[in-house]
């Protein structure tokens, strides 16, 4: 019982991450008709916003380390700690939440630059061309990040106060072995809030309505005389922010490295397609579904019956769904079929 419950939580958590990334991806699909292979990189850039904020907060003074006698070694003491003592340490501790504030404008900027500089010129090109150019861009950005931050993962913890686990088993009366990390729960709640935010933006603002109309019929909206180009920039920036925020919040869970986006890219594409190309609810549902399935399939009990199932479950489900429902769970006819 415990195990099932905790796998469910895990699945929801994973699903939230998938859904969040897939959401931005499918937004770009549905509205802009662009197959963005650089979307994973946006996620990675979000995570590296956190890394950068952390690095800035921990800019340090080099002090000769006298405890090392072999060679001249320097100790690094963050200026923040030197200046403000405890307060400084606390600020550094809160690097992840602080990064959110910085990540939003940065990701908006990245989104605008990407859309105006590159993506815009590819709306009318083949999907294959779009895939290639964004894939090329992804490699370039990755290499640049690698050049500045190295290839090793850079661990950044969640704030001390939420770094442990919550004894939800005790709380729910399910025994004390049922624990769940605070930060993962925060991540889940955060995801739900962001997803809800995006949906209400699309549903309740006029801006959003135009975007939704654009998802249905781009030419029609264009004919209404609305400056569709600018809306597209906004949509792309929105997708970038969603992916970036997902990245920021993900840093305490898995230490970010320059390649993390690519790992998520393939998966999030599968999620988007399973959900139905261009369908926002589809992406969210598919994200959660695949997350939960993956989580359950990695249980030992399951693996003993079906060895290797945890390795292929997502793809197996993807194949099955695409064969049974040609356009994914909630896809519409005619989107991305040529």
């Amino acid at each position: 019982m415990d195990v099932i419950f905790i796998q469910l939580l895990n699945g929801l958590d994973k699903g939230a991450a998938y859904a969040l990334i897939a959401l931005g991806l499918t937004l770009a699909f549905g509205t802009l008709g662009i197959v963005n292979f650089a979307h994973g990189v946006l996620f990675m850039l979000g995570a590296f916003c956190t890394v950068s904020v952390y690095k800035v907060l921990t800019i340090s003074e080099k002090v000769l380390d006298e405890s090392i006698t072999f060679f001249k070694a320097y100790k690094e003491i963050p200026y923040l700690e030197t200046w403000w003592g405890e307060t400084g340490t606390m600020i550094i501790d809160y690097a992840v939440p602080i990064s959110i504030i910085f990540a939003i404008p940065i990701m908006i900027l990245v989104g605008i630059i990407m859309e105006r500089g590159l993506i815009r010129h590819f709306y009318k090109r083949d999907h294959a061309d779009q895939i290639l150019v964004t894939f090329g861009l992804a490699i370039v950005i990755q290499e640049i990040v690698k050049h500045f931050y190295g290839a090793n993962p850079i661990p950044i913890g969640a704030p001390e106060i939420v770094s442990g686990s919550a004894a939800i088993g005790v709380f729910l009366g399910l025994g004390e072995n049922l624990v769940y990390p605070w930060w993962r729960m925060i991540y889940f709640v955060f995801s739900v809030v962001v997803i809800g935010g995006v949906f209400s933006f699309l549903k309740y603002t006029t801006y959003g309505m135009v975007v939704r109309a654009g998802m249905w019929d781009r030419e029609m909206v264009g004919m209404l005389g609305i400056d569709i180009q600018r809306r597209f920039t906004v949509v792309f920036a929105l997708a970038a922010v969603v992916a970036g925020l997902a990245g920021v919040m993900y840093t305490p869970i898995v230490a970010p490295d320059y390649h993390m986006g690519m790992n998520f890219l393939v998966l999030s594409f599968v999620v988007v397609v399973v959900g139905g190309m261009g369908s926002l609810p589809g992406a969210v549902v598919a994200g959660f579904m695949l997350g939960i399935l993956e989580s359950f399939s990695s249980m030992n009990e399951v693996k003993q019956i079906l060895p290797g199932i945890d390795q292929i479950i997502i793809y197996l489900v993807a194949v099955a769904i695409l064969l049974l429902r040609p356009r994914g769970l909630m896809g519409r006819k005619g989107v991305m079929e040529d």
Partner: protein
Amino acid sequence: MSDFKKFNRREALKLGVAGAAFIGATPLFFNKDAWAAGFANDPGNSKSVILGFNVPQTGAYSEEGKDELRAYKLAVEHLNGGGDGGLMHTMKPMNLTGNGILGKKVEFVTGDTQTKAPAARDSAKRMIEKDGAIMVTGGSSSGVAIAVQGLCNEAKIMFMAGLTHSNDTTGKDKKRYGFRHFFNAYMSGQALAPILREEYGTDRRAYHLTADYSWGWTQEESIKNATEKLGWTTEIPVRTPLTQTDFSSYITQVINSEADVLVLNHYGKNMNDSLASAVQFGLRDKIAKTGKKWEVIVPLFSRKMAQGSGDDIKGILGSTNWNWSLPDDASKAFVKSFANKYGFPPSMAAHTCYVQTMLYADACERAGTFNPAGVIEALEGHKFDGMGNGPTEYRAEDHQCFKDVLVVRGNENPSTQFDLLKVVKVVPRAQVEYDASMFGGDLGPV
């Protein structure tokens, strides 16, 4: 250095012109020319000799690879008489003079293994076929090491393994032309076992999370055997894919199991991620179902990994080939030499790579030739000291180095930023030795 490169290019051009004259027969002409001599890539009358440094420059182990490359460059500098000479002051026996190897200046080429066996072999092939490397060395994964070792053996080129910890490298996949200085999983198990008994007692149940490939399997087996001898029991091991980054669904099952010790047969980033998940789920503060406190063991540990895991590694036991904080003269000399050049102390990967290069050069000097037949003979059964691991022997039967093994613990109170691992015990060589036939394999002919 640049002189040589120019020379090489000019030479290549000259050959190209000559080739144009021979149109049809040219490729065979090259072929004969390259292999006609007594052994592959004989430097002949050339004033220099080329070594191939094949390390991961991209992918998950690239930071380790870069450190290896630093060590190699340092070794080349020392061999050519530059720098402070490093271990040339402490090495015993020592036949190096600082004027290269056998009077030939040491040059090198580098390649990227990408931590992938086929890519590593491609890169090694290029070194052998194009650059004329006389010896290939490097790597930071057993899969790669075994693959490249096989290739070198076929090409009859010396291979001095870098970081590789699988029993197979000098066990079932051992090769006549391959030599390993690094220790292996079996030794880790033997070295760790007594400490584990001391620290955690004899009534424990271990849960293995194992990277699903040959190194993981041999380590899992070695640790399982060693701990079961203590009286521990073992849960059915769980294999995790190498590409896994989020281990939460594995860790939750660990917590709900009947075990009380978690053994992470993971290396590099894998280990950073799995340990991070374990810490997030509060494993290290919990009491297991057996009533004992949960413990985590990382049998193969390195400072680079410790750096990647931050605070999570505090108090965790593991074993390592070498650590920069060792107090012997050789280690001190090496750290001084390395750290003064690069600003931080070397990793164990850097150490083993540096030592391998020096041992190869020394063996050439002793053999008086670059001919692998002679070099192999000089290395087999070679006993040496003053390289940071105490008295060491290259066993003739399997080309494995036997030396003391370090059991380390993640430092609870690091006094410096580099002081991440604390040496708990230096396990003497006798305790980790085993019979050469234990892991099977066959070196094959020279």
